């Protein structure tokens, strides 16, 4: 009995002290606004790892009086976390930005156009198969992602759009797709991305029949922020966008230094995906990085991006990625830096902003 009473007192005491600790820590937290950026392993996003590790990000965050945390996720969970509003910013492609947060009503703004896939994504076949021979056969890919987009664009560009319906997709998780394809000679086609592509191409009798360099600028890798964070009344969201953009271009400048000067930086960036310098350089070769803010801002404001987003949103709508109850492709509208809108103006969900990239270009960050 005594013991019971004692444990009861002890419990109460613990709860009290916990509560007090919480109260005590609350004001400290409120003093500096803190933001979380989610990223996943990919050649164009690995710089976030280096940005945090090298202290560059901390320096920029301190300059604007905020805290920025960088967290690594697997790709799909990072999207989930962003849609659920657990993180404030996230690295994702233009397609996912449209069909995940934007289509789920989370108003999203792309503040950095980092790169586009210029051969990173590829359609690989066995035994010299041609695209025209694929209908009726099984294709391994992660369904309803850029892989499927790439494949269907390849078919459409080659005048085979009508036969897409005869292709049998085999939905395969990206963590196993390379080994599953390599060990199963009965599966003739796979669509995936680097570094898996490089791994698969080491095998005999396989070759690339189509890759993303044939649709340049269509698979864009972005940093997106929730628009409501960006528009916070206290201006902290703006500070966050400025700090992360500043840090990003500082890292990119180090990366693009000519010759061996960049080796050390690239080696450390490659660490993010447990890659070697050689392998990371090979991946960079098929990635069109926008190393300067000028080039990135130009891309975000170009007419090409409008065409791309139109193709992407139609693909998403056709495949039900904008939601079953979305009646029209115009219901998830996209706005471009000059204010032009694709879709219904009252339903803008995804915005491209060149503002921060332009500030970086003008050296005003």
């Amino acid at each position, binding site marked *: 009995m005594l013991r019971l009473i004692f444990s009861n007192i002890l419990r109460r005491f613990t709860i009290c002290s916990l509560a007090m600790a919480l109260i005590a820590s609350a004001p400290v937290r409120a003093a500096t606004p803190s933001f979380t950026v989610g990223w996943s392993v990919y050649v164009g996003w690995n710089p976030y790892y280096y940005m945090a590790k090298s202290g560059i990000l901390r320096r920029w965050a301190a300059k604007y009086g905020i805290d920025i945390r960088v967290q690594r996720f697997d790709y799909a969970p990072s999207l989930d976390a962003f849609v659920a509003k657990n993180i404030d910013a996230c690295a994702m492609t233009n397609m996912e930005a449209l069909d995940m947060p934007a289509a789920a009503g989370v108003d999203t703004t792309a503040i950095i156009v980092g790169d586009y896939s210029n051969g990173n994504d590829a359609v690989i076949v066995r035994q010299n198969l041609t695209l025209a021979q694929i209908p009726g056969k099984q294709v391994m890919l992660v369904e*309803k992602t850029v892989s499927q987009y790439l494949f269907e664009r390849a078919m459409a560009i080659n005048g085979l759009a009508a036969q897409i319906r005869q292709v049998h997709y*085999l*939905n395969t998780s990206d963590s196993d797709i390379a080994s599953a394809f390599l*060990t*199963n000679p009965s599966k003739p086609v796979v669509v995936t991305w680097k570094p898996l592509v490089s791994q698969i191409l080491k095998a005999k009798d396989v070759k690339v029949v189509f890759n993303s360099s044939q649709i340049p600028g269509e698979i864009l890798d972005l940093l997106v922020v929730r628009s409501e964070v960006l528009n916070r009344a206290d201006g902290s969201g703006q500070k966050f966008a400025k700090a992360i953009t500043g840090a990003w271009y500082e890292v990119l400048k180090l990366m693009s230094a000519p010759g061996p000067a960049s080796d050390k930086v690239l080696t450390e960036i490659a660490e993010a995906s447990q890659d070697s310098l050689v392998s990371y350089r090979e991946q960079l070769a098929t990635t069109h990085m926008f190393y300067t803010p000028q080039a990135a801002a130009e891309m975000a404001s170009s007419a090409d991006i409008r065409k791309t987003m139109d193709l992407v949103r139609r693909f998403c709508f056709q495949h039900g*990625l904008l939601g*079953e109850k979305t009646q029209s492709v115009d219901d998830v509208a996209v706005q471009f830096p000059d204010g032009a809108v694709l879709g219904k103006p009252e339903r803008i969900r995804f915005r491209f902003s060149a503002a921060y990239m332009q500030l970086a270009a003008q050296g005003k960050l």
Partner: protein
Amino acid sequence: MSFLRIHAQPGRTAVWTLSWFLFAAGIVVYFYVAEQRHRENPDDRVMPTISQMVRGFSDAALKPAEEEETQTGGGSSIVARFRASMLWKDTLASGRRFVISVALLFPAVLLGLHMAMFPVIGAFFLRFILFFDKIVALSLLPILFIAFGIDELSKIMLIVIGVAPTIILDTFNLSKSVPREQVVKGFTLGASDFSITYRIVFKQIWPRVLNSIRLNLKAVMLFLFAGEMIASTDGLAYRIALLRRHMGMDIIIPYVLWVALLLFLVDFGMNKLNHKLHPWFEER
């Protein structure tokens, strides 16, 4: 405070209320939060409201599956529509894998029994299976792909490899726990090795083994889902994996509840059958 003591005797209504309380609380909290999220963002897909889920589920259960939109018969009965639906096709595909895998667990029972009864067989298998039981099959996927391909066989083998060792070892232990005296007595009455094995030991442990298989259904389901998420063209987990790409929670949640219901029914059915077959068996 006597109602919290060991000898408390809650009435019928009290038991009923208490046992449903957590369900009610869960549902209320869910819909309260969902409602709030929808007020804030009408397009929210993370926590669908009840009407969205009903619509999502009725679409999944009554609309023809995507691939054969051509043969839509407008006036056909609900049963016919259900049988053409996405949900039915997925359930059938997953159900087939499930039934085959569970059927393949029965040879595992025989192996465990023989290992316990015949020392040479036991010596041959026991150590290896004890080791094999601790292997996390999911992490050896690439090897499984080489051995079994990536079609149906690999999914079924993943389940068998994952669950069979547990069943073998359980059967082994149960067989060993049959009193030695019964075996000796059987021999003095002139029984053969096999009649001892099957008519004395197996008869006694069988209902417990069934119980053990029943308790492992959850593990079977976990491996089945893992397999379908890795590579497949149909099945319940395949659908869930696809819907996750665009946060189709309005269909995912009803799907998960549907799986829970099916699993519950199988569990309930096996339990009832076990008691029907072995009325003398009292453990539950």
